[in-house]
């Protein structure tokens, strides 16, 4: 049942446009201390490289223009040539590359997790195909809240992420905040960053992980510490009880269909763990790991046939009639 390929492509472009609008996704626009250092190193490398390129090109041009047919060949002495090679070909690169090497080596441990301050916020992130499971931990390593696909962090406080993978190798990358860190099944890798300004930064998976690797994005929202604390408290709470008859019907629809086989809504009997936690799904800005904006229409589309939006995703279509869908959306829309 192959549909026109234009439609998924159009969706992808729309998604890309969505992500590009209002959100930065650039290594060269650092928003954290770590990203700033990486950007600085990158600029220096670029600068040195540019200087070398310009210098070499200039020398080449000089060589080309100076060599005219009517002048006697001016062959430099052996010593002259040798010194040129040694200085220009060995010492100069050694010095510049060596300086960059030393800088990179020094930078490495500083951005590794061991250098994170003791009061860093601990977050455990487990990558799945093709979504992100996020647990906030307290000082004792206890999980206090579980969310999916949207990471909120307080501005000015270090955040240490413990990265795991449920299935294949993924990679955690928020260009504005830090470099890529692989997430390898059977291991825990770590990274940390301190965001310096408020804003929303998009991240994505940076290691090919399957058919929807390109659509495995997530959002990092940097908030003031007070706003962050309020958000975390809300996420830690159980789901809101259905407020009216329609929402109750929606909750019933949720439990009568395939939803309960994979999703969790804390506070109900739905506690399955193989799909994103939906306890506060209405509070998220996007759906399907950054693929769609979060509203009733896109949610309905996603539930009815995820395969049209993210072909190969592990969520099956759920055929619902109008009334059932209406009730379900009303219920899920209340889960803020």
């Amino acid at each position: 049942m192959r549909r026109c390929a234009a439609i998924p492509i159009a969706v992808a472009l729309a998604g890309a446009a969505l992500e590009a609008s209002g959100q930065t996704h650039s290594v060269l626009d650092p928003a954290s201390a770590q990203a700033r250092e990486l950007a600085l190193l990158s600029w220096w490398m670029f600068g040195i490289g540019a200087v070398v390129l310009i210098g070499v090109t200039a020398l080449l041009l000089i060589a080309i223009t100076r060599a005219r047919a009517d002048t006697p060949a001016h062959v430099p002495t052996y010593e002259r040539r040798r010194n040129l090679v040694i200085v220009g070909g060995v010492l100069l690169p050694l010095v510049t590359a060596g300086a960059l090497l030393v800088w990179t080596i020094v930078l490495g441990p500083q951005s590794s997790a061991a250098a994170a301050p003791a009061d860093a916020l601990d977050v455990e992130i487990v990558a799945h195909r093709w979504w992100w499971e996020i647990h906030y931990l307290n000082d004792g390593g206890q999980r206090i809240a579980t969310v999916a696909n949207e990471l909120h962090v307080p501005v000015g406080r270090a955040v240490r992420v413990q990265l795991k993978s449920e299935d294949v190798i993924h990679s955690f990358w928020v260009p504005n905040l830090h470099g890529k860190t692989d997430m390898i099944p059977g291991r825990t890798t770590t990274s940390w960053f301190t965001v310096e300004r408020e804003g929303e930064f998009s991240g994505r998976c940076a290691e090919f992980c399957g058919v929807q690797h390109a659509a495995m994005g997530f959002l990092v929202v940097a908030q003031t510490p007070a706003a962050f604390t309020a958000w975390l408290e809300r996420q830690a709470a159980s789901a809101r009880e259905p407020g009216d008859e329609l929402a109750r019907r929606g909750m019933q629809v949720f439990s009568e269909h395939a939803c309960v086989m994979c999703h969790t809504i804390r506070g109900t009997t739905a506690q399955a763990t193989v799909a994103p936690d939906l306890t506060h799904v209405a509070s998220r800005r996007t759906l399907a790991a950054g693929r769609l904006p979060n509203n009733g229409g896109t949610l309905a589309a996603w539930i009815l046939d995820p395969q049209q939006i993210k072909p190969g995703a592990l969520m099956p279509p759920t055929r619902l009639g109008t009334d059932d869908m209406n009730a379900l959306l009303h219920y899920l829309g209340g889960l803020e």
Partner: protein
Amino acid sequence: MTWYRFAVVRYGALHSVMTIAAWLALASCSDNGQHADAVFDGGGSADHDYVRLGDLIPGGGAAGGRDTANPVAGDAAAIADGRQLFDWYNCSGCHAGGGGGMGPPLMDTTWIYGSRPSNIHHSIVSGRPNGMPSFGAHIPDHQVWQLVSFIQSLGGTPDEGDANDRPDRRD
């Protein structure tokens, strides 16, 4: 559905139109909250509208009833999908890797409720009296058939299908 998907694609500018279009599309769907039960979705007269468990047919006549074939028979990918679902949906919690435990083995040739694909499908969807849960609408029909394919690949039924040549086993 065409209106509806079209509206989804044009989200950036037409949010409200998309929402409205979605509702219109849904309203135009013919079924009103009835999910089709794949086992009983028509085909044949009402007299033959049952799933036949075995071969003991009184009167010595021809076999009646329905024996739905596995639509993904012969699909190695379906076996792999079925293996993952077998773990996800906790089938392995009762049936282990096919050897059984709380539930009976699925890899041997003893079948309490029939070994045909349609019987296995029926067991999963409707449940069975001595403790097999009824998964009903909780597992979409195509996934039930993937599970059936995987179960057949365990070797206890006449038709094993094409086994995945890269089983995702760790030990």
